[in-house]
């Protein structure tokens, strides 16, 4: 083995391709290995569904969140840095996105208010008027509450009725009967509700606002991604202006981003309505239903691959990419060559933040909830993906293909273990062992390679 490598190195021209292949083939072979291993094990000990395309597709989709964020992390790791805030920055992006959707942000931005809050204010005003009219004693107030609840219920019923009616036209025959009976039920319920028409009209305004502006989704999406970029910018700015090591800075910002997320969400996960707030294209990023598949995969998978390809091109063929490697390989040299180290560091973290923001969109698409806590601990899996893929935490080394493979290896192991009924704690131990093993193997390879 040793001799072969030596020979390969000394074969002119061949060496670079060989080095590259070796760096990338290692993780790829490992990925293939674990897939085969679990397929066989599953075939022997479980129901044999692991190796099916359907299951592999699920794994692929699960990989996407980590993989996209790990692309950003690859950039950072190559530049000789690290980002411990990636996890909470990711969930912050998802939370901002969810918040934007729920708050019908486009309307809020352009009109300074949205229907939901406007309606709430109207309600409050109405109650204030009622109170002023001397009906503020406790029983009357309770009665007023009851009336309001009835009113709200009526509004919801009307909404459901209208929706069901609209569905009726397009529904296939077998579902039509079901819908028809639902409509009748709703109508009878409505008749039984006794709500004054005047009060109800007010509430229709609120209802009309709920199916929100189509723009809101786009604005919320941009906000979510920008939250990621902003988080990265702040990291980069702090690292290069305070000259404190990235580990410490991002350890701090990790908590800051968690706090910001909790502040925005009020420490409760933000659940925008799937019916009204979340557009189909957003949830389709990672949806496995047949209508959302293109060439066998939801479009998020293709998008992740395109992002990876773009990053690989940037790393290889752009001036910026060269500088990132220079920074990570030897910062002093970079400075000596007239490279503006501070500027490029900020750029690296900001660009990584873009990837992390996009990963936040993926996460929202999967969970349809904006939960600032959901990113806790994710940063370690993101870093692990880079490291398993051959990235060096001392900088200067890392590859897009390796990182994607690293993310996939972790997803395959998690899924395979679940399939085989291996318990979570055992999964964690296996994953940890693999991380240590991968890095050790890489170190050994490096040492042999650069031995003086």
């Amino acid at each position: 083995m040793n001799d072969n490598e030596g020979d390969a190195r000394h074969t002119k021209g061949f060496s670079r391709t060989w080095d590259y292949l070796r760096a990338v083939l290692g993780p790829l072979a490992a990925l293939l290995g674990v897939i085969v291993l679990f397929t066989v094990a599953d075939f022997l000990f479980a129901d044999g569904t692991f190796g099916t395309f359907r299951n592999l597709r699920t794994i692929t989709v699960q990989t996407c969140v980590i993989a996209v964020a790990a692309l950003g992390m690859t950039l950072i790791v190559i530049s000789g840095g690290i980002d411990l805030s990636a996890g909470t920055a990711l969930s912050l992006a998802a939370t901002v996105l969810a918040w934007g959707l729920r708050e019908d942000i486009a309307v809020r931005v352009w009109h300074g208010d949205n229907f939901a809050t406007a309606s709430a204010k109207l309600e409050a005003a109405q109650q204030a008027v009622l109170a002023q009219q001397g009906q503020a004693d406790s029983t009357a107030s309770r009665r007023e509450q009851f009336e309001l609840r009835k009113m709200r219920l009526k509004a919801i019923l009307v909404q459901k009725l209208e929706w069901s009616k609209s569905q009726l036209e397009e529904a296939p025959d077998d579902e039509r009967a079901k819908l028809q009976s639902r409509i009748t039920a709703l109508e009878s319920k409505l008749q039984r509700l006794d709500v004054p028409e005047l009060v109800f009209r007010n509430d229709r305004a609120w209802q009309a606002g709920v199916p929100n502006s189509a723009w809101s989704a786009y604005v919320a999406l941009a906000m979510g991604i920008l939250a990621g970029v902003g988080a990265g910018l702040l990291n980069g700015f702090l690292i290069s202006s305070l000259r404190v090591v990235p580990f410490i800075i991002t350890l701090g910002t990790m908590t800051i981003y968690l706090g910001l997320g909790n502040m925005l969400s009020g420490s409760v996960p933000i659940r925008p309505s799937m019916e009204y707030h979340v557009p189909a294209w957003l949830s389709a990023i990672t949806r496995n239903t047949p209508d959302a598949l293109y060439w066998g995969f939801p479009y998020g998978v293709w998008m992740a691959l395109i992002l990876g390809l773009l990053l690989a091109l940037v790393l290889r063929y752009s001036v910026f990419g060269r500088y990132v490697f220079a920074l990570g390989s030897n910062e002093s040299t970079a400075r000596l060559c007239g490279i503006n180290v501070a500027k490029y560091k900020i750029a690296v973290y900001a660009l990584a933040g873009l990837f992390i923001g996009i990963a936040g969109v993926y996460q929202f698409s999967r969970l349809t909830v904006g939960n600032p806590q959901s990113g806790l601990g994710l940063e370690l899996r993101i870093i692990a993906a880079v490291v398993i893929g051959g990235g060096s935490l001392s900088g200067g080394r890392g590859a897009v293909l390796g990182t994607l493979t690293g993310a996939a290896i972790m997803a395959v192991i998690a899924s395979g273990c679940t399939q085989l009924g291996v318990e979570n704690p055992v999964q964690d131990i296996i994953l940890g062992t693999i991380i240590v093993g991968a890095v050790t193997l890489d170190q050994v390879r490096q040492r042999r390679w650069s031995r003086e």
Partner: protein
Amino acid sequence: MPLSDTSPLLEMRGVCKSFGPTKALQNVNLAVPRGAIMALIGENGAGKSTLMKVLSGAISPDAGEMRLDNALYAPKGPHQARTAGVSMIYQELNLAPDLSVEDNIMLGIERHRLGWLRRSEQHRQVQSALRQLGREDLDLATPVYRLSVGEQQLVEIARALVLEARLIVFDEPTSSLTGADVVRLFEVIDRLKQAGIGVVYISHFLEEIRKICDCYTVLRDGQTAGSGEIAGTTEEQIVALMVGRTVSELFPKIGHSPGDIVLKIDQLTGRKMPQHVSVELRRGEILGVAGLVGAGRTELLRTLFALDPVRQGTVRVAQIEPPHSPHARIRAGLGFVSEDRKTEGLAQSRSVADNLTYSRLSPYARLGWLNLRRRQAAVSDWMNRMQIKAQSSEQPVAALSGGNQQKVALARVLHQQADVLLLDEPTRGIDVGTKAEIYRLMGELAANGKAILFVSSYLPELLAVCDRIAVMSRGRVREVRPANAWTEEEIMSRAVSLEESLTHE
């Protein structure tokens, strides 16, 4: 020790060591007689340190054998070497500054019973060692950071004595000592010799060697070039052995003549160094900068290149004062080759092509995207021109020899089209052949109108290559003279002088 025993104390025979493709040691033979001081001489990169690492057990040789007192000696690590009786006194002292003299001497060899120190016994041993060195006046409780460098060295030597060393290796022991300390050190070394301890003395200074050594071995390019008795050997003979070629071969002369002023430094003062440096440099001129280590020569270049901050003073390149950033200095036409290729000068894990073009990627970039084919062509051209030996331009520079790495660093500066080259020890740690190539290159560059500021600690090359030489000490330029108006001795005496020269230029 019976006087009739004429076998050498230490004998190294056929020692070979390779690092990758580089052969650091080839068939080196060396013998240290009993009770004698042997000088190990050789240029930087000749293999002295590798050989001493083999001797101290830090690395193991690929081939060859060593015998100490006629017994096979094959240390598996520095610790084994020390217990076998071989101690090293390095240039960089190896002490714990906050521990006392006694604790430092006994570090790792503490006398104890069940983990409790036996202070009185330690005391006795330390004192007897110091007595042997003639310095029992040294207070054992003083923390060593309070001692002078010479006294600290003494502590290391005492440690070797407590370890009952039979052979002590001194690696450039006088490089950081004052004149009085040097005299005292020589006394100590003489005492060691009287006590029958073998000494290997590594130094660049032939006068020193002549003063205290009995015999010598010269290494060149990893091979034994010659050995013999000091008495009856002339300095020229030793130099010829070291260099392996005549002076005219080593320093090719290429005619060049100074033109108009391109770099004007006025009262340049940095954070600590340099101090009020005013120098002018003309096109087609090579200005040497001599001085001891720590005289502020590197700091001068770094300040010029905006890598270190400026407290006061101005730098003008072609009469324009460029902003204080490396980027701006590169644009103004300055090019800097760092003395430290490993940690600063080159991105070791990146390719030759990357390292060569980092400072000027613009010719191959369009909207931020690189045209790698165009760059490849340019890089190949430069590699041919500079005769850089690499398997391909995509090979990491770490895999190249020191000389070729240095050529990459030089090529980068030329590739960035620098007019004023700031070269910090450009010939350090590279082989003689490449040195000659670099001298020739410098001459050619000067002939083409480039200005060169050449920092070096190796006086012969300064005297042979430069038009003028400035001598620095303590951050100041003490004196500038045409190169032919200096001698090595004069440069050294100015380098150690403290007061400003009255005959400034």
